[in-house]
């Protein structure tokens, strides 16, 4: 992903990257590249195809989505903790032109804090597409409910939708593993991939995931939100991470691109987009 490389370069801290410390790096690498690029690209495609002009990316970290959106004329607000927001705004400043900079910014907002989240959303006018790439697996179910309530409040006020693959993250990584390595060892590849991130952040994802999709759907519905599952990509999409895959792997990837892995969550009482 060119903008991710650009963003990483803007940090001036690439010397911190030591992949040699990652166990089974060469096995995990192609799977994780696919997973990360697909979830990133799928949400971006949904936003553009559905004509959204506002994006609120919750707990976006140092995602390069802000660069991508600003360069496509879409207003982007990344909701983050203060330290990350400060660094993030600096990185955006380094990468974007003055005109693009007006479209992308970080706002200080804890996803579980209703006032901060609403203030971040209020930086935009009109329907908002709320995105999330990798937060829910860090939160207890109680915290997840709180985040969903805040999202609901924003959707009730602004209209729009919330899209994420977080509720299918475990299966998503396993499916990506099946693309690269076939049916064998998908769970093992998922576990070892998850461990890379769990070790960095001292987290336990399996403790936070719902047992299955039905349980997650019921949980979201109980917060007064409507869930719909949609395909990752609704039009032919070429990925950077598919270069180097063989014919058989590409066939499996093509079928995965149509899998209903994106969770489209809306609030029934408001329109999605004007």
């Amino acid at each position, binding site marked *: 992903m060119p903008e991710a490389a650009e*963003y990483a370069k803007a940090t001036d801290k690439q010397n911190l990257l030591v992949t040699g410390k990652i166990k089974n790096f060469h096995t995990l690498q192609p799977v994780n590249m696919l997973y990360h690029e697909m979830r990133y690209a799928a949400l971006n495609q949904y936003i553009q195809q559905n004509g959204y002009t506002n994006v609120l990316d919750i707990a976006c970290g140092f995602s390069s989505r802000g660069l991508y959106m600003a360069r496509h004329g879409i207003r982007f607000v990344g909701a983050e903790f203060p330290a*990350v927001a400060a660094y993030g705004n600096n990185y955006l400043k380094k990468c974007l032109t003055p005109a693009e900079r007006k479209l992308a910014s970080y706002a200080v907002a804890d996803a579980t804090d209703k006032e901060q989240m609403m203030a971040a959303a209020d930086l935009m006018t009109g329907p908002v597409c709320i995105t999330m790439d990798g937060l829910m697996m860090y939160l207890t179910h109680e915290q997840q409910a709180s985040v969903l309530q805040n999202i609901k409040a924003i959707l009730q006020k602004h209209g729009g939708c919330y899209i994420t693959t977080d509720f299918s993250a475990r299966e998503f990584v396993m499916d990506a593993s099946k693309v690269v390595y076939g049916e064998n060892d998908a769970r093992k590849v998922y576990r070892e991939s998850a461990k890379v991130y769990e070790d960095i*952040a001292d987290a336990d994802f399996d403790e936070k995931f719902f047992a299955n999709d039905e349980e997650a759907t019921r949980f979201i519905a109980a917060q007064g939100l409507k869930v719909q599952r949609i395909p990752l990509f609704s039009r032919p999409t070429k990925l950077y991470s598919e270069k180097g895959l063989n014919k058989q792997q590409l066939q499996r990837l093509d079928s995965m691109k149509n899998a209903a892995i994106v969770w489209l969550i809306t609030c029934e009482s408001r329109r999605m987009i004007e």
Partner: protein
Amino acid sequence: MTDYFLLSVFIARNRNILEELLQELFYLLHLGKNVVNMDKRFPVRLLSVLVLGLFLLLSGKSWAAEFEPVFLYGLYVAVLAEGGRRAGGG
């Protein structure tokens, strides 16, 4: 970036074969076999170091260029820690 990207995917998938080939190449070079029609004046050690250096340089750079997610995530967690936070809050 694309070149590094392709190279790193190639290396990742064929690492064992590449390592065996390199070992074989060094072995043959040091034995003075005719694999590259060399004679005694051929800078064997220099060539070995260059091949190995090039391999490490290119593969190292390609890893750095393509693994932004882990790098950016690691940096993210470090910045959160600076602010007394953990990923996901707390």
